[in-house]
């Protein structure tokens, strides 16, 4: 799927930005990193084919989007880990090729098809070196909460520049992950 490739690319780019943000002069830029985390979450949704990913696809004729999408789009105050879920996916504007309704249906999880779940490995023909990226994005919840980790007590310590979370699971992954929890 083209836009899944796109999503993967965006996830990689976003992780790279978060990582390099640590060394920036002047400290972590909250605004920019928030935006990057929102993009990362959207891309992750599409990449993993999660529900909420279909909200991102452009409108197509037929039944209106599920009520979830409207609430998510308005950006309600988050209640839990599915924070202000505005999952949107890139409908690849860069691609000149128009999608047929059938393809859209297949991707979006139209009635009769189940959306792909997190556990499913990427199709072998894509050859995307997904190993590191897939494991990293699987630990992210939505938005900031994913980046911060689940340590509630760390909330006060999240002023720029301070490490706030010591999840052992994260440390066991590759070096990138420890950089990300710097929020």
């Amino acid at each position, binding site marked *: 799927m083209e836009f899944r490739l796109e999503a993967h690319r965006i996830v990689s780019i976003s992780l790279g930005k978060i990582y390099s943000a640590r060394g920036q002069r002047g400290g972590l830029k909250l605004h920019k990193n928030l935006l990057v985390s929102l993009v990362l979450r959207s891309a992750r949704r599409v990449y993993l084919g999660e529900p909420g990913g279909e909200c991102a696809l*452009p409108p197509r004729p037929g039944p209106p989007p599920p009520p979830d999408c409207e609430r998510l789009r308005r950006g309600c105050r*988050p209640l839990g880990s599915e924070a202000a879920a505005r999952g949107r996916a890139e409908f690849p504007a860069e691609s000149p090729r128009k999608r047929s309704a059938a393809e859209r249906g297949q991707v979006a999880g139209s009635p009769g098809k189940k959306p792909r779940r997190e556990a499913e490995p990427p199709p072998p023909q894509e050859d995307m070196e997904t190993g590191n990226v897939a494991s990293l994005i699987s630990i992210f919840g939505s938005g900031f909460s994913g980046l911060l980790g689940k340590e509630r007590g760390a909330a006060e310590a999240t002023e720029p520049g301070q490490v706030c979370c010591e999840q052992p699971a994260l440390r066991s992954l590759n070096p990138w992950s420890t950089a990300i929890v710097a929020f």
Partner: protein
Amino acid sequence: MFMWLLTFLMVAFSHFFLLADIISTVEFNHTGELLATGDKGGRVVIFQREPESKNEPYNQGEYNVYSTFQSHEPEFDYLKSLEIEEKINKIKWLPQQNAAHSLLSTNDKTIKLWKVTERDKRPEGYNLKDEEGKLKDLSTVTSLQVPVLKPMDLMVEVTPRRIFANGHTYHVNSISVNSDCETYMSADDLRINLWHLAITDRSFNIVDIKPANMEDLTEVITASEFHPHHCNLFVYSSSKGSLRLCDMRASALCDKHSKLFEEPEDPSNRSFFSEIISSVSDVKFSHSGRYMLTRDYLTVKVWDLNMETKPIETYQVHDYLRSKLCSLYENDCIFDKFECAWNGSDSVIMTGAYNNFFRMFDRNTKRDVTLEASRESSKPRAILKPRRVCVGGKRRKDDISVDSLDFTKKILHTAWHPTENIIAIAATNNLYIFQDKVNSEMH
């Protein structure tokens, strides 16, 4: 629309491109007599408009350097192991109340009040001191004289009068002086503080959007400004594209807005980057106080204070970039914060773009123009030629194709003289001042 003439160009001092010379803010004072620029190296340069002279018909009041001073230095926060950049984020002039001029300048953390005074006379003939200021040997003093004031070469002195420190945990993005001339506000990503200009050891927090749990953070403050006439009203913009008008009379903490200005998103334009491009990078009240101007990545919008549901006007700055958002995300350009400006009569709005282009939109005729601030295209006394970006289709001579745009040449900061058609454009480390030919021919 206008016929812009280049009347001033200042290029960074050194031959090498120094990051410290990048201009980071430009601001006219209330009369337009003075223009201040701040740069990444923490310096402020003030330009003064020469009085127009009948003897020199070509001199239509041009700007020259008036004073330069170091406003902020790099600092180190030892507690957080963070370096604090000296870059000047914003400068705001205070309305002039006596012979001196005052301005506020801010970096990420600290706001400073500077007083700019002129000295063109000095006393001579002291009894106890000699010409160099050394104490005289009293035995040589045989008579008393009265010191007299003698003219001297004009000296401009800039002194720091107040330092407003430790008010912000996050990075300060804007400051705005209240119309009461006694208070001002400073905004960072999550909070807005109200200060009294004479009091530095305390400030009042008037907006706080920091969530109890930082994990729930979804939105930050991106810009804020006081209403030009109503000292109780101010607006702040967010990274979600909304504007909140707040009334300080309603309550001490203005977390609840009086009005929320927000436009529903166009579903056909949804993408991964919808949130980023809807983030408002600048908000400016019109001189009349009736409208607000906002800039987001691809558009400028005019909002009527009486209508919260959508802007009354939307202008496309560079819509041809919409299909390139992924590349612009990759090279970080999508995070560029462009500013916007009104002209004196609120009929024309201006904002910068890439390739050293800047755009103007006439609200009445609905015409727009793209102009370029570059050495090649700006010959003194020659009128700026409109530029065109071609997006496919017929290509005229001198058109630039989207793919040849130089994204490293961005015009983020522009300013319009409060009453006349004079504009200041900061193109990376160069400052251009253009004056409308009609404007100058009138004098």
